[in-house]
C-alpha cells in the first residue's frame, strides 16, 4: 500500500510516503486486496478526511517528480542557458567595442555608466557559466568528466537534448560544430576534387586535443568522441558515473604525448 505494508494482519507504516507511494504495487495473483485500503488508512491517519488529504498531497508530489524525470527538463534548461550565454557573449563584445569607440572621442559620465553595465554583464556571464556547470554535473556527470562542462554544454546545445545526444554516433560528435567545413569537404568530394575532412568540432577546445601536435589531434579527437558517445548514453540511460571512461581518455592522451 502507498502508506505502508501489511504483514500478518499488522500494519507497518512507512516513514517515507513518497517512496512507498512509488512502490505501491502488489502481485497480480493476490488482487483484489482482501481488505479495504481506506479502512486501514483511517486507523493510521485518524480520519477519512486526513487520509484523503495526505494521499492527495503525496500523489501530486510523486506525479510532479515523475514528470520532471520524464521530460528531463534540466537538460532543456541547460540548452536554453547555453543559447542565452552565446547571445550574451556576443552582446558584451559588441558593446565593449562601441564603448571604446565612444571613449576615444570623449570620456563622459555616460561612458562610465556604460562601462559599469558591461562589467555587470560580464559578472552575469560568469554566473550563468557556473549555473550551467552545476546543473550539467548533476544530469550529465560522465560527459563533464570525460570532456569538461563547457564542452559538454556546447555539445548538448548542438544536439538539442540529452536524449538526442545519446542517440548520436561518435563520428557525428567528433565533427559537431565544424559543419561548415565538413559540408564544404563533402561537396568537393562529390565533384571529384581532393578534400580535407575536419578532424574535430567543438571538442577541439579540450586541452587534451589542443595541446597535441597537429598530426596526433585527429587520433585523439576520434578516441575522445567515441568515449563521449558512450558517456552520453550512460548519462541518459543510467545516470551514474563511470570512472574508467575519463581514465581511459587520460591514458590515451599521455600515450600520444610520449610518442
Amino acid at each position: 500500500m502507498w502508506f505502508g505494508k501489511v504483514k500478518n494482519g499488522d500494519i507497518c507504516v512507512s516513514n517515507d510516503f513518497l517512496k512507498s507511494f512509488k512502490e505501491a504495487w502488489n502481485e497480480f495473483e493476490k488482487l483484489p486486496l482482501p481488505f479495504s485500503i481506506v479502512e486501514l488508512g483511517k486507523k493510521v491517519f485518524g480520519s477519512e478526511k486526513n487520509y484523503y488529504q495526505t494521499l492527495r498531497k503525496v500523489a501530486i508530489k510523486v506525479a510532479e517528480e515523475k514528470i520532471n524525470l520524464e521530460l528531463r527538463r534540466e537538460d532543456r534548461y541547460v540548452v536554453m542557458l547555453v543559447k542565452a550565454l552565446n547571445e550574451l557573449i556576443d552582446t558584451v563584445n559588441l558593446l565593449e567595442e562601441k564603448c571604446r569607440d565612444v571613449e576615444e572621442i570623449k570620456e563622459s559620465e555616460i561612458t562610465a555608466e556604460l562601462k559599469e553595465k558591461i562589467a555587470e554583464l560580464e559578472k552575469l556571464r560568469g554566473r550563468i557559466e557556473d549555473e550551467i556547470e552545476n546543473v550539467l554535473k548533476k544530469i550529465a556527470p560522465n560527459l563533464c568528466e570525460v570532456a569538461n562542462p563547457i564542452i559538454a554544454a556546447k555539445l548538448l546545445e548542438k544536439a538539442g537534448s540529452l536524449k538526442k545526444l545519446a542517440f548520436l554516433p561518435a563520428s557525428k560528435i567528433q565533427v559537431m560544430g565544424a559543419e561548415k567545413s565538413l559540408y564544404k569537404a563533402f561537396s568537393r568530394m562529390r565533384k571529384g576534387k581532393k578534400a580535407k575532412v575536419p578532424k574535430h568540432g567543438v571538442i577541439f577546445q579540450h586541452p587534451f586535443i589542443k595541446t597535441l601536435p597537429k598530426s596526433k589531434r585527429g587520433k585523439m579527437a576520434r578516441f575522445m568522441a567515441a568515449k563521449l558517445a558512450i558517456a552520453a548514453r550512460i548519462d541518459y540511460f543510467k545516470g551514474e558515473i563511470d570512472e574508467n571512461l575519463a581514465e581511459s581518455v587520460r591514458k590515451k592522451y599521455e600515450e600520444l604525448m610520449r610518442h
Partner: protein
Amino acid sequence: MKVEKILHNVYLIDKKTIATKSSYGSHYGEKILLNEFREWIPYRSKLAAVFLKGYLVNIKPDWKILYLGAASGTTVSHLSDIIDKGIIYAVEYSAKPFLKFIELAKERKNIIPILEDASKPWMYSGIVEEVDFVYQDIAQKNQVEIFKLNCKIFLKERGEGIIMVKARSIDSTVDPEIVFNRVVKELSKDFKILRYGTLEPFHKDHVFVHVRLS
C-alpha cells in the same frame, strides 16, 4: 436563459448547452455561463457528448471513480464538479498532458493523480481503493482487455463502468460497426450491458458502452 437541472451539479441550458456548476474557474478555455456554470463542450469531452445525446449516466455525488486515460483533464474537471463528495483516481501514462493535469489536481481537493500505465493495474493497486465507477477513455488496441482487468481489481460488486471505444484504434481495416459489435459481445461476457450508442456527430467512429458488473 432556461436552466434545467438534469443531474447533481449538471445543467442543461437552453436545451442545447450542457454545463456543470462549479466554484472554480475555466480549465481548458471553456466559457463560464451565468457566473457559476462551466460549459461542457461535447467536442472535447466524450461524456458530455453522451449526455447531450440524451442518455444520462446517473453519477452520484459521493461516488468513488477510477478514471483511466485522464489526459489533460477536460472530462475529469467536470466529473470533479459532479462528485463533490467523492474522489476521482485519475490514471494517465504520458507525462506531457499530465503537466497541465497536475494544475487541476492542485486546485481541486477530490482528484488523486496517478502517473502509471493503465494496462498494469497492479502497479497502482496499493493506491486505489474499491470504486463505484470505472471510466475509460484510452485509444488503445487492447482497451477492452485493460478495462476488464481494472474492473476485476477495483470495481465493487454491481458497480458500473463506461468505456469509450474508438473503432479506428482497435482495427482500422474493418467497418466500425463490426468492431463495435465485437466489443459489445466481448464485454457482455462479464458485464450486463446497460446501454451503448455512437457519439455522432460529436466524435466520429466512437461508441460508448455503459455496463454494470453482474
